[in-house]
């Protein structure tokens, strides 16, 4: 499978503090990667650096083999979409208008909406299940619905790489399952998906590969079950992890306890 996004020994600073100390990872076409780690591990910083929003001090980030900073901005935004949990869109904006702004990298400042643009917006609204809310103002929605609107904006970009920072944070369990189903559909369509996920159970059930970030370094990487039951995960989260196989279940159930 083609490598879509790659970090090579990326070192990233935020202000005076070095947050990432040489991170390497790869996301391939049609792959689902869960990025996990304790608070302050550098997950959001890594996602922003991968998206080209933060410069790397040393090492490099490659999007389709080319340094992410070397892409022209519009071109990069047509290939890579970022969905963050900071939801600051104007409160009076309607869901449809918000999602339509995802077409900006395709339209630029002046090109009018085409049939393709409209189709992309409609598809993004439909697949996220918020087509019924399209004429509502954002301020009238719940936090979870706003999060789905942000995801729909990312999908409307029609990216080949989708980066998400805690996409399920405000969603109830049903909407979470729906969200990861949407991500799976995108993945099956060939999109490389990397998501920061706090819910380890959910992350393990969804992702084919898990990357554990701890204190700005990749502490473990591999199939979710191996990563979660590794001593590195226990050290990073300061818990002891046990996997319980369920009869007939596709994924083990994990339990976490404070170390004795």
């Amino acid at each position, binding site marked *: 499978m083609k490598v879509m996004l790659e970090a090579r020994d990326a070192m990233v600073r935020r202000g005076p503090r070095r947050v990432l100390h040489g991170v390497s990872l790869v996301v391939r076409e049609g792959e689902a990667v869960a990025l996990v780690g304790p608070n302050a591990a550098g997950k959001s910083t890594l996602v922003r650096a991968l998206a080209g929003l933060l410069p790397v001090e040393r090492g490099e980030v490659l999007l389709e083999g080319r340094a992410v900073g070397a892409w022209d901005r519009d071109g990069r935004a047509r290939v890579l979409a970022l969905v*963050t949990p900071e939801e600051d869109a104007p409160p009076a904006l309607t869901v449809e208008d918000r999602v339509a702004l995802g077409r900006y990298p395709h339209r630029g400042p002046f090109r009018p909406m085409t049939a393709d643009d409209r189709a992309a917006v409609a598809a993004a609204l439909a697949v996220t299940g918020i087509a019924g809310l399209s004429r509502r103002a954002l301020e009238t929605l719940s936090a979870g619905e706003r999060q789905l609107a942000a995801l729909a904006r990312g999908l409307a970009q029609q990216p080949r790489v989708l980066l998400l920072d805690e996409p399920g944070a405000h969603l109830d369990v049903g909407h979470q399952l729906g969200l990861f189903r949407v991500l799976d559909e995108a993945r099956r369509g060939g999109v490389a998906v990397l998501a920061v996920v706090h819910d380890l159970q959910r992350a393990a059930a969804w992702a084919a590969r898990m990357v554990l970030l701890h204190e700005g370094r990749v502490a473990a990487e591999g199939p979710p079950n191996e990563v979660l039951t590794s001593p590195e995960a226990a050290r990073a989260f300061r818990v002891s992890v046990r996997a319980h196989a369920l009869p007939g279940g596709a994924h083990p159930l994990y339990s976490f306890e404070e170390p004795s």
Partner: protein
Amino acid sequence: MTEPRRRRVAFAALAATLALALGLATASGSVALPPLSVLSSVAARLGAPEFSPLSEPGQAILWTVRLPRVLLAALVGGGLAVVGAALQSVFRNPMADSGLLGVGSGAALGAVLAVKLGWGQTFFALPVAAFAGAMAAVLAVYVLAHAARRASLHGLLLTGLAVAALAGAGTSVLLVATEEFRVKTVLFWLAGGLEGRSWTHVQLGGGLILAGSAALLALSRPLDVLSLGTDEAAALGLPVHLTRLGLLALSSLVAGAATSVAGSVPFVGLVAPHALRPLVGPLGRHLLPAAFLGGAVLVVLADVAARTLSAQMDLPLGALTAFVGAPYFLLALRTSEGRS
């Protein structure tokens, strides 16, 4: 009512209100002109037959005093409202307006300085000095905010407050040191007013206002993307700092031009976008033109009140917009707090 329909109705109502306000404003004043004759005289200039001729002095009042003043009021109001709407998107704060960039206080300092130096009666020195003052203040805000660090919106806002306070202090000191007979010119200008404005003011100030407002409207889509927040805008491929700089420069140009011909006219940039956003939505391509029309209506009507409320003198225009704007704002604040 569906959203596009509501928007169309809102625009039609705004346009009709502006037309009525312009008509009322040209007809009324210390010398009332019959509205029909005003219409006839304007039609005659445009090549239509005259159906209700104005008297000789009526013609003179209409064409040399009334019309330039009314048109300038519309342009100043429209420009200030467009700038308010644009800055509210740039700063992502419904309370933002041109005052935050130091435009008003810089213009005041420039004007007072010109009067102090004895240029008060020199042709056009006052507006030019005010415009220069406004631009200098905005430039100072921008440079100081960037010298501190890579300018955040927050830093820009706080620097704007500091520069405005400094310019205000300078204005006070100069005012105290100004000869008494000159203070009146300054005071009138500080409080805002359109008394004695000519076609030259309309051409220079109005031209800048129109061109700048049109440029802001052309940039309405980048403005919308910017209103999503720095990270999201950058992720969508927008050159965030460059776009912000361009929008701030255009906004200062328009607000500087408006302030240099009309003095301080507060609250228009806040009230017009705030009142119209629920009707036409927050997208720039709808809100900016609607704000222009709404701001024009506000200032044209305020100027009618300024000219006609007192028989002895013109009231200060800026005080009138504040008399309407401040209570409106308190009321809006109360209802929005009641809702949440």
